[in-house]
């Protein structure tokens, strides 16, 4: 079988592949990531590309008719049979993700200052540097370089000498002589033992750095942490390259379990993602890989398994068991992370299959586990994880809200990147619509906060009923689409886009199921501890989605409990921030393990009342309107809707 050259346009990059290589894989080899939510099953239609020339085989998949008419094919259903030239439209590419890392919302920064986690746990960074001045060797004082260094530790600090990593040892002879027997040694806590991971000639003033990592199902965020000041000096974020194997954890677990190379492909994808971000950080800050002497990694349980290449197969199958919930401290080198090869990598412990280290990290960051007020912590990501408790008790659950708030499974859904519709106003009767997009760009799709706003606005304008069904209205915006009735938020002629931006009847049902799942999860946790909604004294909203969320909208559609707005706080990406905390405070890291063990996991699929709570939440705002008194009163005209 021959090898063929595939050229991708408009990038102009080419790659040589074996005959029969799947086109999507060829694109990945050329460094181009395509959108996909189905894991290459040909059912999501997102990876459509246009073949300009060449021989190929393709199989029918689900693709928009207007795209098929333009001669487009699905990359996951197309195989290379000769030299090819392929055009990849921007709509099929995974774009870079700017908003992820913006510390953004001011409310979030103010709240972090208020929390002061480092003040709470104490500043004890994972690593530090010391200057070691040694006596030069002589013919009579002829101990080895390492013995000489260790003797210095014993003599001056009067303590057991630290261990040394191989990388540092390899550098030692030259550094000692270059620095004229003055060297800067970087010491790091390698999981209970102190170890030298770096030796630099002379007195190096450069601080040691750590890497805080949040591995999300959808995206990865890294913070570069100055271990001397404790501050994050730089941040990067991008999509998790595992997205090419499916949008949600279940699809990825199936991929890992059922394809021979599945697990290693997923592991390689997440490492590539993180290493690419590390490369950017190193270049932007003029650092070397060896300067990064420790990492702390938080992710959901599946992401953690895939990061460590541990088979995640049984997370998906009853009784839903992860391989482990605590993980050993490993070295960057053995994982394939491009840091100092001897850098210890701390991986956050998980609670259960669907409440992972990212949540433990969030609880660690906030004062949830140590303060008296009953606090609700919600992380709305690809899954919705919820923690309720205070210093005396903590319960957690995961509800399968699905990926729709991150743009998945919604016809025109997208993440909160420029062009995403984030605000929607609909005039009564649904003829006029006013939109606001992220960055004021022409609308390209709708993001989670926009969807929640749209749901509330469409109901208020009488376009949909409380079940989310369209009413029979005489407005050109309501029409029969390919998948049933749909409402046009922005027509292509208004936006200049490739297609109209619509919300279909199925989208609305998806949204109501997602918001219902979250509210039902909250109610189930409350029921487990026999508390009412009003017992919640504070609500912490975590996750990137929270940055853009308007709590008033979320209450109006019945996703969040009807509490005073003052009780709500935004923590942003608490997962990466908790990881940062672990790097600058050893006591905090020790606490993470305790928190993970303290969290009581409530398995909703085993709860008899969850289904009932769920169905009653599949209504706007809820079947029991008494649970949303402010919404009820606003509808009755007693007083305006919360804050409006």
């Amino acid at each position: 079988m021959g090898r063929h050259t595939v050229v991708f346009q408009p990038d102009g990059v080419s790659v040589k592949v074996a005959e029969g290589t799947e086109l999507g894989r060829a694109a990945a080899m050329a460094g181009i990531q395509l959108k996909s939510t189905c894991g290459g099953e040909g059912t999501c239609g997102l990876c459509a590309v246009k073949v300009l020339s060449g021989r190929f085989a393709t199989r029918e998949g689900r693709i928009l008719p207007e795209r098929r008419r333009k001669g487009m094919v699905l990359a996951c259903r197309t195989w290379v049979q000769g030299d090819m030239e392929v055009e990849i439209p921007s709509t099929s590419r995974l774009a870079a993700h700017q908003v992820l890392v913006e510390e953004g919302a001011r409310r979030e920064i103010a709240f972090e200052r208020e929390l002061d986690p480092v003040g709470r746990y104490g500043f004890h960074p994972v690593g530090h540097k010391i200057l070691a001045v040694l006596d030069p060797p002589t013919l009579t004082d002829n101990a080895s370089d390492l013995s000489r260094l260790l003797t210095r530790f014993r003599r001056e600090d009067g303590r057991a000498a630290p261990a040394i990593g191989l990388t540092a040892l390899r550098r030692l002879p030259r550094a000692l002589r270059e620095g004229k027997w003055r060297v800067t040694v970087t010491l790091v806590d390698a999981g209970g033992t102190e170890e030298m991971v770096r030796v630099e000639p002379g007195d190096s003033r450069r601080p040691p750095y750590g890497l805080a990592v949040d591995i999300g199902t959808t995206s990865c965020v890294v913070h570069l942490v100055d271990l001397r000041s404790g501050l994050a000096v730089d941040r990067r974020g991008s999509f998790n390259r595992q997205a090419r194997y499916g949008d949600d954890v279940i699809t990825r677990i199936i991929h890992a379990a059922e394809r021979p190379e599945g697990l290693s492909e997923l592991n390689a994808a997440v490492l590539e993602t993180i290493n690419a971000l590390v490369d950017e950080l190193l270049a932007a800050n003029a650092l070397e890989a060896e300067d990064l002497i420790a990492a702390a990694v938080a992710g959901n349980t599946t992401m953690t398994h895939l990061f460590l290449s541990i088979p995640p197969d049984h997370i998906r199958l009853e009784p839903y068991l992860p391989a482990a919930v605590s993980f050993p401290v490993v070295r960057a080198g053995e994982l394939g992370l491009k840091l100092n090869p001897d850098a210890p990598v701390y991986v956050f412990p998980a609670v259960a299959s669907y409440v992972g280290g990212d949540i433990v990290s969030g609880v660690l960051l906030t004062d949830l586990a140590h303060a008296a007020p009953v606090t609700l912590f919600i992380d709305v990501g690809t899954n919705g994880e919820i923690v309720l408790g205070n210093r005396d008790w903590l319960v957690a659950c995961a509800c399968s809200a699905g990926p729709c708030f991150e743009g998945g499974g919604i016809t025109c859904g997208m993440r909160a990147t420029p062009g995403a519709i984030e605000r929607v106003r609909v005039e009564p009767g649904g003829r006029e619509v006013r939109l606001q997009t992220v960055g004021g760009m022409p609308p390209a799709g709708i993001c989670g906060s926009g969807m929640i706003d749209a749901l509330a606005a469409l109901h208020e304008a009488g376009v949909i009923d409380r079940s989310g069904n369209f009413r029979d209205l005489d407005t050109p915006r309501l029409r029969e689409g390919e998948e049933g009735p749909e409402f046009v938020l922005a027509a292509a002629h208004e936006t200049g886009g490739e297609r109209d931006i619509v919300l279909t009847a199925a989208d609305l049902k998806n949204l109501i199921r997602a918001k219902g799942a979250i509210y039902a999860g909250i109610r189930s946790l409350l029921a487990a501890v026999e508390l009412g909604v009003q017992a919640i004294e504070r609500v912490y909203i975590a996750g990137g989605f929270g940055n853009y969320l308007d709590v008033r909208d979320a209450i109006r559609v019945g996703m969040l409990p009807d509490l005073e707005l003052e009780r709500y706080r935004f923590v942003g990406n608490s997962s990466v921030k908790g990881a940062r905390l672990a790097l600058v405070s050893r006591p905090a890291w020790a606490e993470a393990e305790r928190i993970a063990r303290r969290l009581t996991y409530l398995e909703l699929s085993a709860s008899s009342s969850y289904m009932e709570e769920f169905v009653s939440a599949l209504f706007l705002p809820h079947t029991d309107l008494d649970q949303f008194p402010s919404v009820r009163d606003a509808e009755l005209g007693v007083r305006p809707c919360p804050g409006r």
Partner: protein
Amino acid sequence: MPVERIKERYPSKVGEVVLGATAAEGGTRAHRVKVGGDSTLPFLHFEGEMPNRPVIAMEVQDVVPEWNPVFTAPIRDVMGDPAAWAQKCVEEFGADLVYLKLAGADPEKQDHSPDHCAGTLRKVLEAVKVPLIVTGCGVEDKDDAVMPVIAEAGAGENLLLGTATQDHYKTLTAACMVHKHNIIALSPIDINICKQLNILISEMNLALDRIVIDPSVGALGYGIEYTYSIMERIRLGALQGDRMLSMPVLCTVGYEVGRVKEASAGADEFPSWGELADRAVLWEAMTASCFLQAGGHIFVLRHPGSVRLLRRQIDGLMAGN
């Protein structure tokens, strides 16, 4: 020592729905039928009021029904003539109401036109003087065409029309509003969806006292306890003051029993089960009896034998009133 009788006091009661209209009210019925109004759990006469007796409707179809011989035997002479069939149900079998199912509108069956269906309704209205319940064939698109015509043809008669579901209630609700009829709101053995549908219908401005709940019943031996428990909760909700659960309840017992093998398989197939003729009737009667005690108000039956048995039971249970 005298024993004090402990009585539960409820803040509210089940709403009352009136079916049919006499000449005085603009219709042609001989009398009206009231259902609901209970201020206590079923038949606890010592504790609260139960002002209206539960009623029995008999099912009549506009086609020859595909029922097993036990259920067709009593109506063999009138099948295919809905007016004569309805008359027999009222005059001979003593039905309180007639439940006319327009099964023939089904495009897979006779595909009767809306006007044809309206003609059937007129004939039945002439043949009997009891209030009527009329339901479509169950094919949503066809029912959307048929039921507005039925509502118009029956204007003034204060009919009970079916069937609205959560995803398909608007056309029927509008028809009921325009021509002043009552509606059957069907939910799938789920108290939340039951309540949601009532809210949806009432938000189209149909009055709450024009809605009757069909909670989806099951036959004896087929998860009957699920419906029992849902009906119990609906009743408790109504008594506690939840207006969106305060409607009377209709139980399509005949339809459910007609689907199970216990009421259709002969003794040759299951010798230990005994004769089908007795068993089928008892199965329908037992199922109805169960829902009577769960709080049902309108029972739709098929066999005159079970009608007789259920009526006797209602008499007995109402005797303490």
